[in-house]
């Protein structure tokens, strides 16, 4: 291989794609509008929990996170979904996709009525994300994958000198997967400071509390030991999320290091009758129960649930 060949190869790279993703949806949404938006997203989640059901607990825990990201953080709009200069969000804990469906529907990425196609063969709205749904960057459902996929996207953005950033939502139970920590090592080695992970720390995995099965704490110290910079925040307080995520929109917590935010959340948040209950991970409620839960979401009393708690799906 001649030096000429070497020079040619080393200097050839694809031109940076145009960055027209702009300011995304963030400019249009004020912080004080987000609780009402998140409530509408939660209504979608509850409505998806019948006629076959959905992973309602984990969806409710990350609803505020997704609403905040799509309205205040991501440089992304329905018009810029195909723009290589957009920010990317990967939902690695794919079973909470009802929260994403609800967010995408409320923000105009998909028509709201499309959620009525849940579990219908005529559409692709099912229990895990897939790219037939505009706004879904990559399919998931098998835990421990998308941090690695996000590494590839973040790496290409850096190769092209792009300013856009890559976000990944991880479940806390997902941290059991060795591939997450393998990816943490590699992201740190590659110094991918355009990459941010958010852990939805709802303290449950499918059947039990995380700390009662495979204890995860101290999570921040684990990430720090793997070369990441870590912050924690209340995952249901938009002011706290703004303080934690806002600066990451512009820059990493530390130059040369990937960032992670551990968002403290509550599984089933918004529905006291199923909050923090191990048996309400996946649920398929009756139409009457859905009506009761929607009322409960709006501050009404808990009416009690009689549907069997489906522990594992």
């Amino acid at each position, binding site marked *: *291989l001649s030096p000429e*060949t*070497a020079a*040619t*190869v*080393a200097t*050839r*790279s*694809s031109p940076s794609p145009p960055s027209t993703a702009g300011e995304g949806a963030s400019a249009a949404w004020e912080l004080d509008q987000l609780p009402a938006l998140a409530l509408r997203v939660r209504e979608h989640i509850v409505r998806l929990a019948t006629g076959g059901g959905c992973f309602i607990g984990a969806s409710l825990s990350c609803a505020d996170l997704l609403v905040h990201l799509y309205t205040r953080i991501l440089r992304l709009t329905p018009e810029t979904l195909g723009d*290589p200069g957009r920010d990317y969000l990967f939902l690695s804990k794919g079973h909470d996709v009802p929260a994403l469906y609800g967010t995408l529907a409320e923000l105009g990425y998909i028509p709201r009525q499309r959620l009525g196609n849940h579990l219908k063969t005529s559409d692709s709205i099912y229990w895990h994300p897939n790219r037939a749904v505009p706004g879904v*960057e*990559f*399919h998931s459902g*098998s835990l*421990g*994958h*998308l*941090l*690695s*996929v*996000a*590494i*590839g*996207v*973040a*790496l*290409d*953005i*850096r*190769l092209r000198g792009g300013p856009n950033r890559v976000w990944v939502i991880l479940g806390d139970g997902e941290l059991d997967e060795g*591939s997450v920590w*393998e*990816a943490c*090592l*590699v992201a740190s*080695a*590659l110094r991918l400071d355009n990459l941010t992970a958010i852990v939805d720390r709802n303290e449950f995995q499918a059947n039990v509390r995380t700390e009662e099965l495979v204890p995860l704490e101290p999570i921040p110290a684990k990430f720090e030991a793997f070369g990441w910079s870590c912050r924690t925040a209340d995952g249901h307080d938009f002011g706290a999320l703004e303080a934690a995520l806002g600066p990451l929109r512009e820059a990493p917590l530390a130059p040369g290091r990937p960032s992670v935010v551990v968002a403290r959340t509550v599984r089933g948040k918004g529905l006291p009758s199923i909050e923090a209950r191990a048996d309400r991970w996946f649920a398929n409620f009756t139409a009457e129960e859905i009506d009761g839960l929607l009322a409960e979401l709006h501050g009404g009393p808990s009416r009690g649930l009689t549907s069997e708690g489906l522990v594992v799906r």
Partner: protein
Amino acid sequence: MSAGPPAAASSDRAAAAAHEDWGGTGGPAPPTYEAALAALAAVRPDLVVMTAENRAAIRNLPPLLGPRFVDVGICEQTMIGAAAGLALRGRTPVVHALSTFLVMRAFEFIRTDVGIGNLPVKLIGAVPGFLSDGNGPTHQALEDVALMRGIPHMQVICPADEEELIAALPAIVDSRAPCYVRYNAMRPAVAHTTPFEIGRAELLAPGDAGADGSAGAGVTLLTYGFLLREVAEARRLLEERGVPAALINLRTLKPLDEAAVLAAARRSRLLVAVEDHFQTGGLYSILAELLVGRGLPCRLHSISLGERWFKPALLADVLAHEGFTGEAIAAKVLAAAGEPGGRSELDETWTDRPGGAARPAGWR
């Protein structure tokens, strides 16, 4: 993952040994996979070369490719996931690892991220089959073809030597399908007669057929990868014994050159599939699926590793011990064809023989 560096070193040794064994002449250095990949990368900015710390075949590429050379360390799963991410951004990742760890440690990442995504990630598996020589069963990829061809859209390409690998490389990276390559940088196994094309086999010897390959050969030998050299020798020996056999170098197992196989089945009374792979899921299975599906009642015989890992040793000794030298293959074919001088694997296992390298009794 155990022993990345030792395996790589062993691979180098194996390549060197093979070079000596198989006619290295000390002449001008032949074109290499590494140089071919570098040349393609020079004109294709989409190519990104990745490795899970297996650099034997791509040792000189880091300074040439700069940030387009990505070594993730011994993290096969993360390498595949990241390759999928790069492919989402329009890159064509060419990823390298030892075959066993690439297709098995990272299998679910290949199937789920690359397969479901149908992304053009090129999987280069080193030291497949017998080429892991002395590493032992942890490193023996004998089910890689079965695993990879089971993934929708995945192409499976098995070059017979480095010349064929280099010839295949442009087609491999041009294809928008995911692709698994049984990497093999051996010296040329035979004088190749047919340009490489995905899905096209190379008919190397027509047996006793006419020039158009249509008349009746008794036996057709089908193989892929570096064993082509041994099977070509077996064919020569069979011819000496008055048993002319056709020889097909399949090159790509998926997509399969069905026309070549069906033509062989129509003109032969016996097809023999020779492979350094378990019997299940490899070439024997591929041929059986095709022949049964088309209702062709042709006899099909497998010369494979059945359900066993092979005895670890240097490659030449492995071939002798396991009965995969040209001589041993010819004897097995004679037995399968019911000809005198045959030696069936059922008579006595090849691995029972002390020293392992002796000729079959009564041979020649």
